[in-house]
């Protein structure tokens, strides 16, 4: 397990290094002068020069890259040009909305998808299976932000159970904050749950055909018992893969859903930064998102090895 972990950790580091290089060179080097992009076409030459010096743009590219990376490693993401505040602080504030939202949605989608997938697999080919599969077919076709708007129309505007948007902050208590995140989390979770339920069902059906399930049944276990005691654990590998992949969709989805509910999360930060040409903020948020995706996939790899000992032996 240690060798496996070390090997994975090494490839994690390489991925992060290459990703940071790509982001840095796309944002800072590709087309001309970032200072000119930030200030727009009508900027004065001396203003441009001042901004260039402030951003350190007069130094060689590799020096700037090294400074950017070492800064990030120490928690220093630079200073936002438009807000004149440390980017790290801005990102940290917004993370307290986006991360709980993604986690809430992940929990909801797992809670919906696991029982739905298990139920469908145990009723294979019968009406219950067809109903679940039909629902998931619809679920994967629905854009989450549109679903979010429909939730607003029904539950906020007509029924008035929830507010249509905004976020009270965590200072006012956990419950009001969770309530504000509930509709966004549902909107985010349902399409993901549809995918997850399909994967759960087909993974279970695969393992149910295996010899060890037949053995378990021969020992006298009921189909339901065999499914819960033996098939479920073996079906977890593909399910974990999808959960890992879904994390990046959830993060991306959260950024879009925040727009529907006017939530002050990473999404709003990055879109404001794009319109203000605040490239330092964009660069940092993108790096953070990519970092999150790479680390989650690393954790999923480790989880595989924990679930399936054969994988540890193979590498």
């Amino acid at each position: 397990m240690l060798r496996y972990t070390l090997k994975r950790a090494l490839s994690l580091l390489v991925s992060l290094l290459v990703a940071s290089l790509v982001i840095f060179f796309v944002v800072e080097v590709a087309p001309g002068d970032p200072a000119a992009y930030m200030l727009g076409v009508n900027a004065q030459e001396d203003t441009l020069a001042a901004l260039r010096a402030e951003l350190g743009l007069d130094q060689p590219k590799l020096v700037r890259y090294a400074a950017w990376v070492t800064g990030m490693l120490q928690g220093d993401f630079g200073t936002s040009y438009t807000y004149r505040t440390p980017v790290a602080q801005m990102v940290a504030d917004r993370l307290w909305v986006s991360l709980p939202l993604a986690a809430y949605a992940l929990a909801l989608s797992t809670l919906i998808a696991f029982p739905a997938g298990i139920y469908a697999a145990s009723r294979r080919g019968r009406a219950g299976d067809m109903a679940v599969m039909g629902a998931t077919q619809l679920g994967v076709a629905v854009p989450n932000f549109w679903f979010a708007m429909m939730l607003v129309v029904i539950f906020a505007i007509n029924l008035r159970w929830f507010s249509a948007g905004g976020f009270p902050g965590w200072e006012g208590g956990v419950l009001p904050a969770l309530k504000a995140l509930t509709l966004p989390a549902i909107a985010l979770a349902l399409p993901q749950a549809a995918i997850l339920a399909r994967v759960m069902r087909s993974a279970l059906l695969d393992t149910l055909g295996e010899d060890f399930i037949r053995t378990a049944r021969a020992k006298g276990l009921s189909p339901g018992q065999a499914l819960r005691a033996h098939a479920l654990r073996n079906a977890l590998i593909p399910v974990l893969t999808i959960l890992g992949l879904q994390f990046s969709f959830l993060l991306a989805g959260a950024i879009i859903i925040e727009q529907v509910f006017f939530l002050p999360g990473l999404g709003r930060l990055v879109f404001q930064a794009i319109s203000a040409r605040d490239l330092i903020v964009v660069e940092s948020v993108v790096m953070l998102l990519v970092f999150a995706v790479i680390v989650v996939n690393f954790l999923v790899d480790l989880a595989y090895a924990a679930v399936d000992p054969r994988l540890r032996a193979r590498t």
Partner: protein
Amino acid sequence: MTRGPSLTFWIGAVLSLSFVAAALLSFLWTPYDVEALEIANRLKTPSVAHPFGTDHFGRDILSMIMVGARTSIAVALVAVGIGMGLGVPLGLWAAARKGGLVDEVIMRGNDLVFAFPSLVIAILITAVFGASALNAIIAIGIFNIPVFARLTRGAALSLWQREFILAARVAGKGAARISAEHILPNILNLLIVQGTIQFSLGILAEAGLSYVGLGAQPPLPSWGRMLADAQTMVSFAPHLALIPGLAIVLMVLGLNLMGDGLRDWLDPRIRVARA
């Protein structure tokens, strides 16, 4: 035993092809001019004159849906083209050099691209070059490359073990020729099925990007943009949000059903990861 495609396929084909037909028809004819503003007729609910109603500028929503279908389909289709055009050759190359340096570089490169969801690529591109439908195409297309590269490599690897490939090698054919003449035709079905899946994901991605303002820009009508415009008006004109959303759902549903039907019809044994 030969059998035709299932009912699922036909339902999906009719659904998605009717949107394609509407998009093509919009080049020749739309019920109203999508750029003509008629403020007197604004926010009309569906009627005989305007089957889907009008928006806040008095534009006919049916006409906008037709023209918007053009944008969605074009973006998603070209993005699939980029993914296939680059991903398939890379996957074939990696499989032909299995375990070698080329294979390793291609597969690690794929892993890296997977770490950039298309929204993140779009954010990067837009921050640097500005928002446009072209950037949406590039962002979705880049994300499609590793999807096709992995699928192609996996399928090609198992074919390289087969006798007919060995026969071709004995006949003196090189790896590139074997890949083109023997491997590619045998994985074409798989690629077509995955193509319809990525097409439907592309429609969803384009709608999302346009909704947050990273995709198609006005005056180019797009389903995602229509939803963004509708957002502030859902409380008094819910049809503005309902109709473009339903268009997306039906188009994507149609493509998915078609993909499922194709998969079962072309090769019942091959199961494609639908995630």
